[in-house]
C-alpha cells in the first residue's frame, strides 16, 4: 500500500511538471498584446518593446520558465554580487532591495551619467548617494552596472555617452505668420533644450499650424525628439479659471529624400495638454509631439502639424475646426515653442507609477530581470492588473472556492446517493424513469443556463434571493449566507443528476447479482438485504466515479462563479484570462490542476482501500 502511494505521488509530481510546462507554453506563446492591453492602442512599437523588456518577455523562453518555476532572485544575486531581500512597504506592496555589507538596504537609479544608490535608513527614509564605483567595463569598452531598480527588477544600466546635437524649430501658421524660431547646438549633455517665443496681442489667427523642421542629423544612436507648443494666456482680472487645450494632429519624421520614416496620426485626440490657471496668473498648455528616430546616420526632418483649440470660460468656446479665439481687451496671448532632444545610445521608457503614462529617460536600464521567488517557493509572480503578488489573491480566491465547493458537496452527496439508490431499487418503475430523466436534464443543461433559470425564478420572479453576489469585504461571504444560496443550488443541480445516474446504475447492477437473489430466496427481510448486502457494494463505484468527476465540478465552479460574481478561483482565472494577466492565469491554473490531480489520487487510494479485491492482491 505504501509503495503504491509513493509511486502514485511520484507520478503525480511528473505530471504536474509536464502540466506546468504546458500551462507556461500556452499562456506565454502569444503575449504580444499584453502591452497593448495595459497601455492602450496608442502605444508606439518602441514603447511596447521597452515595456515587454521590463516585464522580462525579451528573455529566452527556457530562462523565463526556470524563473517562473524556481525564481529569479538567485540569478540576480549572482549578477549584482549582493544578497537580495524582499520587504513590504507601508501599503503592503512587496519591495526588493539589495543588502549591503553593513546590512543597509540599497537600490539604484541612473541620473545622466551617474549611478545613484538609494540607501534605506532604518526609519524608512531613503538617502541618495552617488555610486559610480559600481560601473564595470565590458570587452567592448561599454560601462555597465547591475543593480535593483525602483520597480522591483534587477536592471543592467549602461552609462550614457554624451553626443553633440543641434535642434532648430521654425513654427508658423498657414498665413505665414511666424510663431517662433529656435536654434540650438549642444555638445555636452544628454539632453538639449531650446525655446523661442513670440508675443502677440489680441486674437489667435485661425487655421492650422506647422512646424517646419527640427534637424536632428547629428544625433547618434536611438534618440527621442520632442516639440512643444505652449500657448500662454494672461488672464485678465476675472475670477474664472482658464483652460487652454492644444491638440496636435500628426507627427511625422521625414528622411533626407523626403520619404516618411515614421508617422503618427492622432486625429485631434492625441497629444493634448491642458492647464488650469487662476486669476492674474499666466497659464498655458503644452503639447508634446514625440517621435523616435529610426537610424542614426541619416539626416531627417521632424514635422509636427496640428490645430489650436482654446476652451475656457473667459474666451468663447470654439471647436477646433473653426478656431476663432477672441479674448478680452487688454489680454495678451504668448506663444512659445520648445525643441528638445534626448540624446543617448539607450532611451528607456518607464511607465510612471502615478499612471500618467510613459516617461522617457536617457541612460536607462538596457536589460531587466523581474524579481520573484518562483512558483515552487510560493511566489508565482506579480499580477499585471493589480501590481500585487498573485499569491495573495490566489489564497483568498482558493479559500472562497473551497468554501463554496464544500457546501455544495455536502448537499449533493447525501442527496444524490439517496435518490440514486431509490431509483436503483425501483428499476424500470415510474419513480426510476422520472428521477433518471430529471437527472439527465439537470446534468445536460449547461451550467450558465441553469444559473440563469434560477436567477429568473428566485431573484427576478419570486424576489426571494439576490441574483448576484457582492462581497465588500473578505469576510462578507460568512456574514451574508443568503448570497450563497443560488450559487450552491446551481452547482447542486448540475452535479446531482450525474451522481444520481451513476449510483442508480451501480445499484441496479448489484441488485441483479446472484448473492442478492440468494438473500431473497433465503427469505431475508427486504431492508436487511438492501442495507446489509447491497448498499456497500453499490456505493463503491459511485464514490470513485464522483472523485474522478471532480474536473467537471471544477468547470462548473468556474462558470457559476462567473455568473454570480463569486470571488473564487474560477473567477480569478477567468478574469485574468480575459485581461491576459499571464502570471495570474499560470498561478491559478497550476493550483486548479493540482487540486484536480490530487483529488484523483485520493480517489485511487480510497478505491484501493475500499475494494478488498485490490487491497489483498
Amino acid at each position: 500500500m505504501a509503495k503504491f502511494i509513493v509511486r502514485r505521488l511520484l507520478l503525480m509530481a511528473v505530471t504536474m511538471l509536464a502540466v506546468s510546462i504546458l500551462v507556461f507554453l500556452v499562456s506565454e506563446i502569444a503575449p504580444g498584446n499584453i502591452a497593448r492591453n495595459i497601455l492602450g492602442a496608442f502605444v508606439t512599437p518602441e514603447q511596447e518593446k521597452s515595456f515587454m523588456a521590463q516585464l522580462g518577455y525579451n528573455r529566452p523562453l527556457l530562462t523565463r520558465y526556470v524563473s517562473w518555476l524556481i525564481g529569479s532572485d538567485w540569478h540576480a544575486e549572482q549578477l549584482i554580487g549582493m544578497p537580495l531581500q524582499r520587504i513590504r512597504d507601508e501599503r503592503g506592496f512587496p519591495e526588493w532591495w539589495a543588502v549591503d555589507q553593513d546590512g543597509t538596504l540599497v537600490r539604484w537609479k541612473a541620473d545622466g551619467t551617474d549611478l545613484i544608490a538609494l540607501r534605506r535608513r532604518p526609519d524608512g527614509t531613503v538617502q541618495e548617494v552617488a555610486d559610480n564605483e559600481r560601473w564595470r567595463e565590458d570587452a567592448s569598452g561599454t560601462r555597465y552596472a547591475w543593480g535593483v531598480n525602483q520597480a522591483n527588477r534587477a536592471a543592467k544600466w549602461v552609462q550614457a555617452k554624451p553626443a553633440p546635437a543641434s535642434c532648430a524649430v521654425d513654427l508658423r501658421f498657414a498665413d505665414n505668420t511666424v510663431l517662433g524660431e529656435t536654434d540650438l547646438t549642444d555638445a555636452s549633455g544628454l539632453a538639449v533644450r531650446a525655446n523661442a517665443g513670440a508675443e502677440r496681442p489680441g486674437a489667435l489667427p485661425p487655421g492650422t499650424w506647422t512646424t517646419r523642421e527640427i534637424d536632428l542629423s547629428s544625433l547618434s544612436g536611438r534618440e527621442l525628439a520632442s516639440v512643444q507648443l505652449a500657448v500662454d494666456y494672461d488672464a485678465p482680472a476675472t475670477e474664472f479659471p482658464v483652460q487652454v487645450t492644444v491638440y496636435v494632429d500628426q507627427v511625422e519624421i521625414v528622411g533626407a529624400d523626403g520619404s516618411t520614416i515614421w508617422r503618427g496620426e492622432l486625429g485631434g485626440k492625441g497629444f493634448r495638454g491642458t492647464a488650469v490657471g487662476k486669476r492674474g496668473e499666466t497659464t498655458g498648455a503644452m503639447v508634446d509631439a514625440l517621435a523616435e528616430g529610426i537610424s542614426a546616420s541619416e539626416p531627417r526632418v521632424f514635422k509636427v502639424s496640428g490645430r489650436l483649440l482654446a476652451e475656457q470660460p473667459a474666451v468663447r468656446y470654439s471647436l477646433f475646426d473653426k478656431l476663432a479665439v477672441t479674448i478680452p481687451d487688454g489680454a495678451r496671448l504668448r506663444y512659445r515653442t520648445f525643441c528638445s532632444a534626448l540624446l543617448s545610445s539607450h532611451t528607456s521608457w518607464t511607465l510612471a507609477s502615478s499612471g500618467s503614462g510613459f516617461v522617457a529617460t536617457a541612460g536607462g536600464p538596457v536589460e531587466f530581470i523581474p524579481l520573484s521567488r518562483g512558483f515552487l517557493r510560493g511566489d508565482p509572480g506579480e499580477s499585471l492588473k493589480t501590481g500585487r503578488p498573485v499569491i495573495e489573491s490566489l489564497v483568498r480566491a482558493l479559500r472562497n472556492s473551497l468554501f463554496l465547493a464544500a457546501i455544495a458537496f455536502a448537499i449533493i452527496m447525501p442527496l444524490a446517493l439517496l435518490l440514486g439508490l431509490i431509483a436503483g431499487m425501483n428499476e424500470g418503475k415510474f419513480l426510476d424513469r422520472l428521477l433518471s430523466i430529471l437527472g439527465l436534464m439537470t446534468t445536460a443543461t449547461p451550467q450558465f443556463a441553469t444559473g440563469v433559470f434560477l436567477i429568473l425564478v428566485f431573484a427576478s420572479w419570486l424576489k426571494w434571493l439576490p441574483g448576484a453576489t457582492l462581497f465588500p469585504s473578505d469576510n462578507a461571504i460568512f456574514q451574508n449566507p443568503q448570497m450563497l444560496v443560488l450559487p450552491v443550488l446551481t452547482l447542486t443541480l448540475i452535479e446531482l443528476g450525474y451522481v444520481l445516474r451513476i449510483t442508480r446504475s451501480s445499484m441496479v447492477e448489484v441488485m441483479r447479482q446472484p448473492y442478492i437473489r440468494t438473500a431473497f430466496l433465503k427469505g431475508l427481510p427486504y431492508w436487511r438485504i438492501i442495507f446489509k448486502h447491497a448498499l456497500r457494494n453499490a456505493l463503491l463505484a459511485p464514490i470513485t466515479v464522483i472523485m474522478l468527476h471532480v474536473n467537471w465540478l471544477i468547470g462548473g465552479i468556474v462558470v457559476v462563479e462567473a455568473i454570480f460574481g463569486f470571488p473564487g478561483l474560477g473567477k480569478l482565472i477567468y478574469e485574468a484570462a480575459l485581461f491576459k494577466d499571464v502570471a495570474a492565469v499560470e498561478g491559478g491554473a497550476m493550483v486548479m490542476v493540482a487540486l484536480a490531480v490530487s483529488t484523483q489520487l485520493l480517489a485511487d487510494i480510497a478505491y484501493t482501500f475500499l475494494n478488498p479485491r485490490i487491497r489483498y492482491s
Partner: protein
Amino acid sequence: MVAEGQVTAASTATPSRWERLKGAVAPLLRNRIAMVGLTLVLFWVVVAIAAPLLTRYGPLEELPGVVNKGPSAAHWLGTDNKGRDLWSRIAYGSQTIIVLAPLSVLCSLIIGATLGLLAGYHGGWVDDLVMRIVDIIMAFPTVLLYLIIIAAAGASPVNVVIAITVAGAPGIARLVRGLALDIRTREYVAAARLRGESAWYIMFVEILPNARGPIIVDAALRIGYAVFSIGTLGFLGLGLPPPSPDWGSMVNVARRYIWTNPWAVLWPSLAISSLVVGLNLFADGLQEELGRYE
C-alpha cells in the same frame, strides 16, 4: 474487372448495405427515449437549414422602437436590447452550433482515434508516450483548458474548434486504445499481419471498424458536450465575437437586462438546453440498444 468481381461476391454473401442499416436502426426507432432525443435534435437541424425561410428579420437587423420587448405577434419570442428579433437570432444561431459541434467532435475523433490506435496497436514506448500526454491533458479541468487556450489564441470559431479538439481528443484516444488492445489479439488481425498488411492498414481497416460501436456512442455523447461547451464559451465571452448570433453570448449580453427583459435570457438558454438534452437522450438510447445488441 477483378475489383468488380470481388464487390459482387461480397454483396451476395452478406445482406445488402440498406438491409444492414435497417437492421441496425430498427431497434433504435422502437426506443422511445432515443426518439424523443432525435426529434429535439432534428428540430434544430431543420431550423438551422431553413432559418432564412422561418424568420422574418435578419439576425443582425436592429429594428427601431422595439428594444427589449416581450413576445408579440410581430416578434414571436420578443426582441433584445438592440431591437433585434430573438427568434431570428436563435434560428441563425443554431446554424453555427449545428456546424461547429460535429466539426469539433470530428476533429477530436480523427486525432484521438489515430493516437489511440497507435498506442494500442504498437504498445511499448509509443503507448507510454501517448498515454502520458493523454494523462497530462486530462489532468486539466476542461473549462480551464478552454480558458487558457482561448486566452492565448483569441476568440474565433476556428479557435473554439481547436480548444474543443484539444480537450476532447485525449478521452477518445484512451477509449480507442483500450478497444485496440483487445481487438489486436483477434485472429483476423493476426491473419492480416500474416498477409503482410501494413500497420496503418491493420489499424484503420481491421481494428477501427470493429471498434465502432463504443466509439459511435461516445461520439454522440461528445457532440452533446461540444454544444454544451460552445454555449459555455459563448457565455464566457470566449466564443464567436459579437454581434454574431451565438446562443451563449446572447445569454451573456441579455443577462445585463434580466430585470427589464427576462425573455431575452430565457429563450437562448432553453434552446441550448433542449439541444443538449436531445443529444444526450439520443446517445443514451443508442447506448441502451447497442448494449442490448452486444
